[in-house]
């Protein structure tokens, strides 16, 4: 009756895998038995993650790549035989009050959080569809969204726009890729103490204010998000598609 999280014989690709949530996802997927392809801009970070995966007796391959460079990403995909799982994670945030958002910041974020997310998803989907046994062995795409893909927040207007967009993309993709037995979902975490969020939390006032919005009274851990990703990647969630896993300690319930 209970389908345990098991990714044996699956090949997973994780973008933004050098740090934070992406790193945690890569390691969790490897722990669940997947062969993991890790992508990041920083060789040094990739080396560290590969080492951890090796230590936990997992298997990984790493490629340095900026996900906004879709040509470079295509070259990497050509080196891979098969792909079952994509964790479309690479993203960034430059918080600013709406009236003060700089044009170049908006464009930088949109290029990364939407355009690259779309390109990577499209390229990987093609690879996943091409697999002969796809009807039997399903594929799974997980977009890293956010609680801010569900509700607004001060100083987060561009991020809101990007992540609400990702929510829409996931639903559209789910409808179109269902016939190929590829599922598409998002994970929407609250604040997780990643290197990116640690920077924001240096502002103690901001941290206090944000924690007040989480009914469970704590930020999420990287493992909370990575476990949800592994669940969605596996056959434990075989009939879950076009939805979001909200890992937010109750933030959006209010």
């Amino acid at each position, binding site marked *: 009756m209970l*389908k345990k*999280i098991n990714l044996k014989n699956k090949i997973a690709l994780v973008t933004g895998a050098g740090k934070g949530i992406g790193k945690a996802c890569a390691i969790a997927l490897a722990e669940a038995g997947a062969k993991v392809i890790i992508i990041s801009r920083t060789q040094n970070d990739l080396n560290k993650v590969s080492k951890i995966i090796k230590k936990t007796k997992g298997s990984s391959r790493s490629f340095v790549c900026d996900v906004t460079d879709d040509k470079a990403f295509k070259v990497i995909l050509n080196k891979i035989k098969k792909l079952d799982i994509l964790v479309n994670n690479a993203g960034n945030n430059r918080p600013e009050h709406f009236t003060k958002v700089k044009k170049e910041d908006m464009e930088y974020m949109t290029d990364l959080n939407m355009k690259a997310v779309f390109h990577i998803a499209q390229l990987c989907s093609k690879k996943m569809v091409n697999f002969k046994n796809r009807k039997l062995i399903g594929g799974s795409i997980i977009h890293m969204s956010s609680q801010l893909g569900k509700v607004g927040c001060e100083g987060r207007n561009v991020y809101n726009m990007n992540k609400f967009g990702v929510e829409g993309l996931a639903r559209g993709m*789910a409808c179109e890729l269902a016939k190929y037995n590829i599922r598409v979902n998002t994970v929407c975490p609250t604040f997780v103490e990643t290197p990116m969020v640690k920077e924001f939390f240096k502002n103690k006032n901001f941290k206090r204010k944000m924690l007040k919005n989480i009914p469970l*009274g704590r930020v999420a851990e990287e*493992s*909370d998000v990575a476990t949800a990703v592994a669940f969605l990647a596996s056959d434990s*969630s075989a009939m879950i*598609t076009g939805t979001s896993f*909200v890992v*937010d300690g109750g933030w959006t319930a209010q």
Partner: protein
Amino acid sequence: MGLFLKDINLKGKTALITGATKGLGRGAAIALAQAGANVIAIGRNQNELNTLEKIIKKLKVKYESINCDVNDYYKIKTYISNLRNLDILVNNAGTNIPEPFLNVKNSSLETILNVNTKAVFNVAQLCANQMIKLKKKGGSIINISSIFGLVAGQNRTVYSMTKFGVEGLTKGMSIDLAKYNIRVNSVCPNIVLTPRTKKYFSNKKYNKYVKENTPLNKVVTVSDVATSIAFLASEAASMITGTSIIIDGGWTAR
């Protein structure tokens, strides 16, 4: 537990399941027991409670049952308020009498409201109070909702009214119970093949209706839903509260 991957592990936990003798409730009871939880089954059919006992005891966990209608508030209250252990509630007992809105009988309305709304509330409140009284470190309540808690369907006005209600209750409870570290979520399955829905599926037109509205073109199994319930019940979901896991093969993504 790995570095970043949390197991669905319920060893030492006690789970109470209403409507435990058939369909989703029975599946949840078995899945939770497979994850290591002790089971308290509430149902109305002694024979079926006995059959379940045999299955659960084979999994080497404790089992007790009470033959009781969830509408019988005082009997349930006496039972729940005397429990020595309670960590998980699967608030499952529910019913449906599909009728076109214009022809819904007053008796149908009352039957559905009594079980799906009033009993669901009462059982949740009694269990939450008992969890708090037992001074547990936390708890997890899973209300069984439906895709019809999110969207409408033919001849399901009363059912939708009650399941939309369960969605609201879930969010409200999650806020009030967060300070006790009791998480509250719902699962929203598509139409699952169970003893209750068997008669719907025997109608060819209905069968077609379900498949056509499910992009993955498969019927959700009891195991699909039970696995998500076990996930929510466990520490693997420790930051997930006030939300819904939608197990619908893409029905509500469109």
